[in-house]
């Protein structure tokens, strides 16, 4: 038989000593092997950082000379406002006085219309994208997929959807169906489906198997197992991720207009390319305001929802 008794009764002190010695030896071995890997990992990381600094030219003196130019750029896009006429309305013949806010924001209602279009684009794209992501997240979850093929194809399809940059997709769709918000909506929806589909699938993989087994045992079909066994568990998380994605999509849809796919980006692109510098500032301020407001609202909704569901 072995030297160390199975129970501690035969020789408590001897066995304790043995167990402690064995434990200490194992611990030392484990720490030694981990140390090697830690040092290797750290070295690899340091090399990567050095390479990326070198390739991107991230040097202090370049930054030092570059930073003041940011201020220069902002100086050029600042409007010429003057205090005495700042709040002056339009004159009798309908002209705005130079130097007034009315003059600076001559196209205010056009901007608002485009911002509204931007938000609507983000909403539509988020809805369509979430719907596709919802459907595909079940076959794309390793624990739920009915078979390996379906899993493989849905995973690859989602990767394809999120792998192509939105702006590239938008270019393709502008070419296909013409300039306008539809191209932008489709482009963002495809990207959303890919990105959310992966997140949803990961939420599904963390869902408890027990309710699913319960629905299997009553004779439920695969869709019934998903709808009754999985969806109630994952719905709050899905909702939260979808709202977060909507926030991201508002930002995406204000950029996507640069390639003619609708929204405020189209106007931003126009004022930049016409060197209407003060109008660039006018549009930018509104975009930042819109994004901030949307973020605040959606954050509020998400927290309230998650709080209610005790996540």
């Amino acid at each position, binding site marked *: 038989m072995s030297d160390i008794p199975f129970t501690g009764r035969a020789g408590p002190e001897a066995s304790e000593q043995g167990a402690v010695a064995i434990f200490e030896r194992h611990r030392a071995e484990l720490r030694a092997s981990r140390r090697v890997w830690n040092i290797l990992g750290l070295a690899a990381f340091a090399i990567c950082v050095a390479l990326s600094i070198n390739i991107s030219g991230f040097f202090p003196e370049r930054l030092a000379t570059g930073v003041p130019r940011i201020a220069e750029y902002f100086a050029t896009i600042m409007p010429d406002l003057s205090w005495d006429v700042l709040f002056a309305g339009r004159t009798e013949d309908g002209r705005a006085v130079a130097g007034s806010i009315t003059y600076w924001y001559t196209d205010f209602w056009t901007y608002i219309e485009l911002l509204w279009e931007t938000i609507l684009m983000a909403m539509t794209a988020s809805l369509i994208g979430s719907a596709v992501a919802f459907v595909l997240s079940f076959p794309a979850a390793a624990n739920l997929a009915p078979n390996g093929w379906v899993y493989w194809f849905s995973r690859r399809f989602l990767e394809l959807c999120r792998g192509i940059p939105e702006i590239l997709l938008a270019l393709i769709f502008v070419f296909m169906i013409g300039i306008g918000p539809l191209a932008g909506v489709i482009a963002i929806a495809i990207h959303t489906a890919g990105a959310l589909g992966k997140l949803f699938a990961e939420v599904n993989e963390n869902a408890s198997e027990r309710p699913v087994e319960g629905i299997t045992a009553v*004779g*439920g*079909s695969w869709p*019934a197992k998903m709808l009754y066994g999985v969806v109630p568990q994952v719905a709050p998380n899905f909702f939260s991720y979808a709202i977060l994605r909507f926030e991201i999509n508002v930002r995406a849809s204000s950029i996507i207009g640069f390639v003619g796919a609708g929204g405020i980006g189209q106007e931003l692109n126009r004022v930049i390319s016409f060197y209407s510098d003060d109008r660039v500032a006018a549009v930018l301020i509104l975009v930042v305001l819109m994004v901030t407001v949307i973020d605040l609202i959606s954050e509020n909704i998400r927290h309230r929802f998650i709080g209610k569901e005790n996540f």
Partner: protein
Amino acid sequence: MLKLERLTRRFGDNTAVAAATLEIPDGQMVGIIGRSGAGKSTLLRLLNRLIDPSDGHILFGDKDIAQLKGRELRRWRSDCAMIFQQFNLVGRLDVITNVLTGRLYELPAWRAMGQIFTPRERAFAIEALDRLGMAHTALQKAETLSGGQQQRVAIARALAQEPKILLADEPIASLDPMNAKIVMDALRSINQQDGITVICNLHTLDTARNYCDRIIGMQGGRIVFDGTPDLLTTDMAREIYGAEADEAFNEAATSTTLPPRKSPANEGAVHV
């Protein structure tokens, strides 16, 4: 009549159920006993095909259950309800919807996907819940209930299936003695009043003795005992349970037998 013929399930090199041959007449209440890992759970899961057999046959009427696929298999599962140790309810759904899922096999797909149930189906589900004394919880989320209450909802879900056979995999192992008694009483009365065959995995000996017409003992995947409770001698039981005998025989800790004189023991009992 449910017939098993040399039913076998292997997991790699390990044989969980080895050539089980059994005949269970309709309407019997059968208890399967044995220590942890004896293959009780695997045997039960083979019966409703949550696990596929490696070998052998399961015959019910003239059908070989082991060969069923697709819709036929789902039909068998709906005929052969199962109750789990951990209840396996959908915690975030309300109790009534959990019970209504027992009707899923009968529902056309569009109604199942829309969660559209008829007033008649709802009434049926409420009656099933009422039999278990749980109708008042119908609109609560299942996860808000205690373990014993969840198990009663799970039994109501099984009743909603209108099953021919009811399988129960350690139905009382997670419950305190009083709830264990309520659940076992409910299973017994379903067996006696509805004539449904009940096959029940039990860890403790006295519960099996008290409630079952017939006891099957398993050891290392094999059936080593099959007979009425009075044929099960203490020596036989010790052999079945091996090292776990003391635990299985410790009736105070793990059984449905309530300690005497502890005021109205039947207060929470359900007269099904």
